[in-house]
């Protein structure tokens, strides 16, 4: 018994230390599959970059240096994307921005119009558990969608008045995770000024 154990140990040792064993490359492993981009993560990233649109400065010679945050926001969109928002003081009815250049114009105007941006997904709470739900769908033709209710909190840059407004956003993402279509609803009739 003792001899058998010794022989077995010797054999194992020999196998482990043999040059051929030492040089054997580890079994080729397939690279881990890239984790598919989750639409809720894409939607949350949109909120992060939207809120960063106020994160810029005026140069000492009076230039509004917002291009970096605007570019970062527009990078979330696919070429030829559509971005639709509600009416403004200069236009009646919904306003559709098509293509990155048009969306960049919207983002730049938005970043220069508002400050202290805090757009946040609305909490739902039950059984003492709060969550910020983002509703997700997978399209049969590829790509995903996401939507959520949120609160738009912002301060007018010109007069420094602060508001909170209920809102909703609907995203369609392509398979690369870029926004193909976005519809933003801001219920200005329900806006409340924060004193």
């Amino acid at each position: 018994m003792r001899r058998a154990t010794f022989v077995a140990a010797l054999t194992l040792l020999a196998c482990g230390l043999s040059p051929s064993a030492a040089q054997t490359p580890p079994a080729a492993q397939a690279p881990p599959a890239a984790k598919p981009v989750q639409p809720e993560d894409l939607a949350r990233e949109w909120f992060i970059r939207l809120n960063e649109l106020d994160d810029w400065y005026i140069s000492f010679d009076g230039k509004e240096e917002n291009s970096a945050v605007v570019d970062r926001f527009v990078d979330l969109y696919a070429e030829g994307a559509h971005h639709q928002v509600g009416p403004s003081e200069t236009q009646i009815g919904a306003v559709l921005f098509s293509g990155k250049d048009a969306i960049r114009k919207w983002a730049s105007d938005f970043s220069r119009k508002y400050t202290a941006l805090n757009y946040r997904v609305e909490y739902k709470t039950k059984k003492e558990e709060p969550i910020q739900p983002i509703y997700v769908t997978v399209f049969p033709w590829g790509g995903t969608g996401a939507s959520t209710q949120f609160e738009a909190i912002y301060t007018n840059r010109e007069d420094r008045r602060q508001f909170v407004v209920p809102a909703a956003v609907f995203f369609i993402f392509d398979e690369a995770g870029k926004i193909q279509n976005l519809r933003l609803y801001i219920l200005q009739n329900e806006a409340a000024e924060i004193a």
Partner: protein
Amino acid sequence: MTRSDVLATVAIAVMLSGAVVAQKRPYDVVMKDVGVTFGTLRKTLDSGDLVSVAADAEKLERLFKEVEDFWTPFKTKDAIDAARRARDAFTAVAAAAKEKDAQRARTRVSGIGAICTSCHGSHREQTPDKTYRIKP
């Protein structure tokens, strides 16, 4: 050189000189000038040199016109209003100093710090290297 050539040359020279005068100074230069001049004004007020106080107050009035001009294109109401309030205050300080009313000058100077603090709170941000940036 014809007469019209002379007139054209003079016109161009006048336009260029206007452009040089109209050119704005960088905002940090203006603000540093404000800080230094306001410090001097307070010292001269303490020393009772009301002639110098009036001169400093008038300079600060002009400096805050530059501040107001900086913010006007952005229509940033609180900054524009702060610059105007500071200008008005320094106008009053200069007037009091010219009338040799040191007490009234001191009273008007004492309220100006609050205007500075309010505007800096909204529009000035210190960076890690202790320099400042202008928030919109």
